């Protein structure tokens, strides 16, 4: 062994800092070529040789005793250990007894989001009761925060959260906003440390929509919300058409008044940028599908913990599902309105089988952490879904290749393959075993050490 296992995240960061310092003494011309946050010019990330582990690449069959070469943040090569050349400059990561998986991806989370999600309004106001008139609010506050919001601007990464997700095997999360109807746009992050910018894989990953109501104003009901969503997409399409017409020949045409809300929506109605609908019960799934069909959106459904109940319609109009493993029956569900005994029974026996039922029906899905900010708790929920009938292989795919495909990053993430981003977790035991322990995590080739590796 040429190096000891000192190559931890902190060491890498130290190296980066040193390089940043070095950059300042470079001639101005070299620095001028770089962006606002200059990459450490001339710096190359470390090289690692992970060896003697079992490799589950997900892309193909497992390699029983293998080696993975990680260079400068990417996977350089992998194969059986005896056929792999360990480069001279590689730091050896001895991984005997460990299993290497692609870093898990949660394609929907609220990680690092400071602002707590607001509870949706409950159904069923009495028919004769006049509702409260809305309080007077400035116009621009009526649809906070709107489709133009980038959640990235609200995030505050915290080390314990990163560690909690690493320890559950996650290297990548999509973080979505959680307030309002048009909640804003999410960001796809690689959990490679604490500073936010190096984490960003894609900002504006998707537009997020929730079937909720607005504080004190219109819409104050679910049906109003649905109308508001439809009218907004209609208006955005109209806005885009008018702009196109104007661009073609402005003579004789009045220009369209600038509207930041509609402007932000245009790419989603015209250029098929992805839209994610939060679906809290079986009916939400159907409501979303109708809107998706009406506006021909490129959409996904998140939450979807009653998706199995909509299997028939989902088979007719397939749409990627981001299934949050929240087993609590939604408030409107018949499983929740029949007393505590029935509700508990449903939570313990019926809802955990959602994913298994979807798999049985041949409906594709990714498993996502959703609002669950605790990695261990989420992994526990995955185990519950497996106990309820979900095949481990399907669970693994639903946390790796499937979300990578849904998010359009399957060429760089989701499997252990040469050329892909070095997001790898090394686990003592199978990743879904009750006693699984994550020992090492690579994110963008940055090594994080957790449980001690027994030799």
């Amino acid at each position, binding site marked *: 062994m040429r190096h000891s296992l000192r190559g931890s995240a902190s060491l890498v960061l130290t190296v980066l800092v040193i390089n940043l310092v070095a950059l300042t003494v470079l001639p101005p011309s070299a620095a001028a070529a770089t962006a606002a946050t200059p990459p450490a010019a001339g710096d190359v990330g470390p090289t690692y040789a992970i060896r003697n582990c079992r490799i589950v690449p997900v892309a193909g069959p497992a390699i029983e005793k293998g080696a993975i070469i990680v260079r400068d943040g990417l996977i350089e090569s992998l194969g059986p250990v005896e056929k792999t050349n360990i480069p001279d400059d590689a730091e050896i990561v001895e991984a005997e007894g460990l299993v290497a998986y692609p870093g898990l991806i949660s394609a929907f989370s609220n990680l690092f989001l400071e602002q707590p999600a607001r509870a949706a309004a409950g159904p069923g106001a009495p028919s004769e009761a006049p509702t409260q008139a809305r309080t007077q609010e400035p116009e621009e506050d009526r649809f906070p925060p709107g489709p133009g919001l980038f959640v990235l601007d609200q995030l505050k990464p915290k080390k314990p959260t990163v560690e909690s997700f690493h320890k559950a095997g996650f290297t990548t999360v999509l973080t979505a906003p959680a307030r309002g109807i048009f909640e804003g746009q999410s960001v796809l992050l690689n959990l490679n440390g604490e500073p936010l910018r190096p984490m960003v894989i894609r900002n504006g990953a998707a537009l997020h929509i929730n079937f909720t109501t607005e504080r004190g104003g219109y*819409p104050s009901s679910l049906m109003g919300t649905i109308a508001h969503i439809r009218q907004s997409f209609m208006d955005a399409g109209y806005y885009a058409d008018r702009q196109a*017409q104007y661009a073609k020949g402005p003579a004789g045409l009045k220009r369209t008044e600038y509207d930041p809300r509609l402007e932000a929506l245009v790419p989603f109605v015209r250029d098929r940028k992805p839209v994610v609908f939060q679906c809290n019960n*079986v009916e939400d799934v159907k409501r979303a599908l109708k809107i998706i069909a009406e506006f021909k959106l490129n959409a996904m459904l998140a939450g979807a913990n009653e998706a199995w109940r909509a299997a028939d319609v989902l088979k007719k109009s397939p749409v990627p599902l981001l299934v949050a493993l929240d087993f609590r029956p939604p408030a409107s569900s018949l499983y929740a309105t029949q007393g505590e005994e029935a509700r508990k029974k449903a939570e313990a026996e019926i809802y955990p089988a959602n994913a298994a039922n979807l798999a049985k029906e041949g409906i594709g899905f990714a498993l996502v952490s959703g609002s669950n900010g605790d990695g261990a708790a989420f992994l526990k929920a995955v185990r519950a879904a497996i106990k309820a009938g979900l095949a481990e292989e399907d669970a693994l795919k639903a946390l790796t290749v499937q979300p990578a495909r849904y998010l359009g990053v399957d060429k760089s993430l989701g499997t252990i393959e040469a050329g892909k981003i070095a997001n790898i977790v090394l686990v003592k035991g199978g990743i879904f075993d009750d006693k699984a322990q994550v020992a090492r995590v690579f994110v963008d080739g940055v090594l994080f050490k957790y449980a001690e590796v027994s030799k």
Partner: protein
Amino acid sequence: MRNAALPRFAVFALIAAAGLLPVFADGGDILIKNATILTVTKGVIPKGDILVVDGIIKEIGGTIAAPPGVRVVDAAGRFVLPGIIDSHTHIALAGTNEGSEAITPEADVGTVVNADDTAILTALSGGVTMVHTMHGSANPIGGPNVVLKTKWGRPSEDLVVKEALPTLKFALGENVKQSGRTVQPGQTQRYPATRMGANAIIRREFAKARNYMAQWDRYDQAAKAKNPPRTLVPPRKDLRLEVLAEVLRGERVARVHSYQATETLEFMELAKEFGFKIQCFEHIWEGYKIADEMAAAGIGISVFADSWAYKMEAAEGIAGMAGYCHNRGVLVSINSDSGERIRRLFNDAAKTMKYGGLSEEEALKLVTINPAIQLGVDRIVGSLEAGKQGDIAIFSEHPMSAYTRCDMTIIEGDVYFDREALVKEREQAEAEAAKKAAAPRDKGGVS
């Protein structure tokens, strides 16, 4: 108080079945024998059979032989009637009012159907097979309503009755002017605050809708030209005005929550002015004052049998209202407006015999064929006739008797409610629970 008296064990059975299909479904075929059949439109058959095949009533008459494999229900000594129809309720919805603004015809209750609402099961227990589930009365123009069958356990899309007449909820009076509400600091009083304001804002919206239609007509005309001008711009599509345009085109009818005679007459004038159709006034406790006007205009009413005077504008209600209006030629239905009263609409209809002088046959019409006509579905339901859908209720006594109860409710030949089976199930569940409770614990607890 919704769901209080619910036979909850049916739900347990459904949970156990996991598939959520009705436990008692028979594939749309059923033969009911030896019953007193109240056809509503074709008289009473004192002792007869009724055969439903593929969800449609195939035959009604003396003795019908059971086709092979068809479930036979012996209803000797019992009464068979068309499934009861509730012309005005709010069950099976996720939210009732879009009350934030005065005019919200874009807020369609058809988009928020919740098939999990246990009030559906409550309705079935009272022989109800169809409901007009409506937007609330919080604002002058609420939203489109939806007609559902009470197919408990079926996915929501299976409940929707597509043949029904599209309707739009309007409301007048105390609710829309928010008379019972104290304006809190920081809040504004929503316009309108008076009855004249309600009339004015509705007129204004219809005038807007008329302009909107004209705009589209001009555009469509211009777009049809051989070489439409390059600068031709279509109007913005507005969901709110689209719905009002449907009303103005006669494709959608008005259902109007209204109590007082004066503003009701004013609304009728408004409808005449804009040329739209009022299908029904709802509740309309002063309807007896304007019965002839309503009858002449072909406007029906959907009302409570009793329980007036619960607010000022209901103060002048009279017990004989429904019967009186019926006798004056108004198409009357008795509604529940509730997820609880919905299970005893037959009792409410029977009250018109005492307080309106109606016959048994007439009273039964108020919850069967009359609401069917109001909803535009009398071609398919509302009476027991060959060719109509097999929506049937079986009662232990005549449905207008105070001693009657619903034993079985059938929709399109499938049994959705079976009292005997439910009672048996409940007894089994109770016995099991008792056995479980009596069994000694295998592990001693720590105190």
